[in-house]
């Protein structure tokens, strides 16, 4: 029954160190292809979209329209830099637009009127102080998000969804539901927003729109942080494998709180830029930008589940969202339909992303 094998023939044949089989090299090639698709794919989509629009409407390639696109894209891009960091750390921030509205509202109220807080008369604040207040409010709101998520052990999605409501509500309370400056404040108190703030949102340098420049600087900053700082590295670690990050000594709570605080800071900057562009702040401003920032991040190739991606991709993603919105405007698609289309694009992108990941490994 049992075959008799001479015992000593096979025993001493020392096996060689794990001979690599064929599949790893194939995997590497698939992985390279996948990365190329992610990066070049988004860029290609942007170029094709622009090419189409430049034929479909004569207005698309005019300098004034391009500047316009840059202004529109800037807000999404700034928010999306924060969002990218959050998503890289395997979180999600649904409250970015609400924080933008809140910080801009608080700062606009203080820059255009005098208010009494705890018996102290404050305002109207000069531009620099107004900006500092906005940034502080944004960071505080983001910090709170981080605190609730880490110390309160609430899922990121739920925590920021809840805080979205809280921040919008506070902004409504602060502004009384009116735009700032409103006709009321403007006529009675002669309160106008500082010129410098308007310049942030609507000005240009040598023909290039200031918001676009701000967005580029922020993308550069985000890129530097992610690539070259210990903070950036811990973001990738926490999002890539939380357990391994913990075992490597990464302070996960600190990293997450910092990430959300940074996202709040970005939201405040976006809120200021938007206020300057609209020449007024209001509690509900930027509505829908949270979804656009998530879309920009995912279109730009960041893994929706964390650990993989970059802000350079996100910039391209934001430009796609900007050009798409602008194109729909130029093609006279109604604003209502635009919302439908943008929503569908987000879903389409995530579906494509999932498919791409399934198809090309990981």
């Amino acid at each position, binding site marked *: *029954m*049992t*075959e*008799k*094998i001479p*015992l000593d023939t*096979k*025993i*001493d*044949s*020392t*096996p*060689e*160190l*794990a001979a*690599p*089989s064929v*599949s*790893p090299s194939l*995997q*590497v090639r698939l*992985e390279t292809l996948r990365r190329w698709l992610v990066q070049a794919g988004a860029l290609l989509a942007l170029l094709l979209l622009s090419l189409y629009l430049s034929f479909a409407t004569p207005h698309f390639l005019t300098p004034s329209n391009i500047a316009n696109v840059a202004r529109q894209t800037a807000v999404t891009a700034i928010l999306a830099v924060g969002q990218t960091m959050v998503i890289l750390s395997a979180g999600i921030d649904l409250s970015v637009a609400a924080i933008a509205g809140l910080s801009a509202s608080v700062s606009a109220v203080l820059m255009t009127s005098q208010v009494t807080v705890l018996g102290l008369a404050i305002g109207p604040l000069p531009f620099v102080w107004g900006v500092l207040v906005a940034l502080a409010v944004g960071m505080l709101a983001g910090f709170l998000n981080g605190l609730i998520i880490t110390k309160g052990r609430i899922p990121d999605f739920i925590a920021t969804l809840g805080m979205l409501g809280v921040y919008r509500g506070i902004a409504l309370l602060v502004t009384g539901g009116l735009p700032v400056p409103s006709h009321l404040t403007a006529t009675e108190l002669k309160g106008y927003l500082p010129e410098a703030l308007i310049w942030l949102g609507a000005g240009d340098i040598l023909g290039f729109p200031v918001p676009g420049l701000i967005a580029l600087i922020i993308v550069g900053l985000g890129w530097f942080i992610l*690539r*070259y*700082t*210990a*903070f950036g*590295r*811990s973001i*990738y*670690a926490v999002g*890539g*494998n939380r*357990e*391994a*990050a*913990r*075992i*490597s*000594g*990464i*302070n996960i709570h*600190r*990293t997450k709180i*910092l990430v959300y605080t940074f996202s709040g800071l970005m939201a405040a900057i976006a809120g200021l830029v938007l206020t300057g562009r609209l020449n007024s702040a209001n509690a509900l401003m930027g509505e829908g930008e949270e979804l656009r920032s998530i879309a920009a991040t995912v279109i730009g190739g960041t*893994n929706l589940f964390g*650990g*993989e991606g970059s802000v350079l991709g996100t910039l391209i993603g934001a430009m796609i969202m900007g050009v798409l919105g602008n194109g729909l405007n130029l093609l006279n698609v109604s604003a209502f339909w635009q919302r439908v289309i943008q929503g569908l694009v987000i879903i389409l992108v995530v579906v494509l992303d999932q498919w791409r990941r399934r198809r090309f490994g*990981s």
Partner: protein
Amino acid sequence: MKQERRLLLLMEKIDKRFPGVHALDHVDFDLYEGEVHVLLGENGAGKSTLMKILSGSLPRDSGRIFIRNHEMQEIAHMSPEHAQALGIGMVYQELSLVPTLSVAENIFLGRLPRNRFGLIDWKRVHGDAKASLNTLGIDLDTHAITGSLSVAEQQLTEIARVLASQPRILVLDEPTSALSDTERTRLFEIIRRLREKGVGIIYISHRLAEVPLIGDRVTVLRDGQKIGTFPTSEVTEDQLIQMVVGRKLTEQYPKHGVEKGEVLLRVENLSVPGKLENISFEVYAGEILGVFGLMGAGQNELARALFGLEPAYTGRIYIRERLTPIRNSEGAIRVGIGLIPRDRREGLIPMLSIPPNITLGQVSQYSPHRVLSLQKEKQVAQRYIKELRIQPPILDRPVLYLSGGNQQKVVLARWLYGDTQILVLDDPTRGIDVGAKAEVFSIMDSLSRRGIGIVFISSEMQELLAMADRILVLRRGRIASIFQRGEVDQEDLLRSAS
């Protein structure tokens, strides 16, 4: 007598690849009525994979399977349902019970007896469950929630479940890794009884000592290849060891005696509620302290506690004789402790490449705004790639694509870079191939020669006996004994652990 026995199962040239591993390389296997066929091989040899292909829970890449159903017939496509219908009963190595259900529900999962109204007959469920547990000689409340049982009790429940289906071919995949000596003896009795009844039994083990106790024939697998099949009476333990390991023992386990240095780590009365009780020991510079225990005896918790992952511990930990509370991994790293976790996936950031994975243990200690030098990081990585022979030496590819052994080396490199003084290795050779194991041992040896103190947890007695200077045996969360090198054999370890 052998001529009367009929072939029950024939597996021919079974081939299976996983990404990066040739798990089974054209393996032949057969089984007769009324015999116990031991499948022997190290962790990662492919034993479980072969059996999962037999039970239909994994598809095969190629090869043929024949099973006797009155007469031998080829089974082209195996599925778990099909396997069950053919009388194949399988006790999986990883427990496959539903932790939230009761013991009785688990035993009859998918075939709960019904009364004539079509309702579940709970009386019979519990009665029959009780009976099948009793044949195993265990007394368990059949209403108990399975997840609340000890690992050993769960394993026995799982065995009871499979026995209750009255299989003609019974596969036991490392059933004794959590069992005590008496439980093991009782299981062996049951196996002998089933063998008398003509059941064919495949018994998987990586414990050599068990082979002559229970087996009629033994098949040795190594790195996915079949080394051979022999009647157990015709091979000695030494021959089996060599076949399992595939090289001379001195090559597999390079070990140089090292002068003990100062006490690096002293643990006094360490307790983790419900897991560890009053653990005290010390580790000297240059020493390898082995830790052995049955599955679930507290080894894993010990590793975690030493690395600050069980912040609720009580007791004292001294580092170089200084009292040092360790409440998180950051703190552990700061005082020079490193951990190679039990699950390799918990050690690495899969999407990052080798350099950031190596420096992560240091980067985590920096303040967030600190700027990293990617250039220096690459040089560091190159140094360790060379020193530990990490293959392939590509700097910008995610570590996800490295083989298990090379991933393990990356985790080791992280602690080497961090000037770690005390290294806790929790089953570092699990699921890596024999060659890579030898390399891990040789790295361990050179680390201890550099004066690093090593806590080496393993489920492989062989490894511990060969590499450790002392072996600490855990039993249900307590220290059962501490042996000196050379004073013990596998039987002593098992007896002490159970």
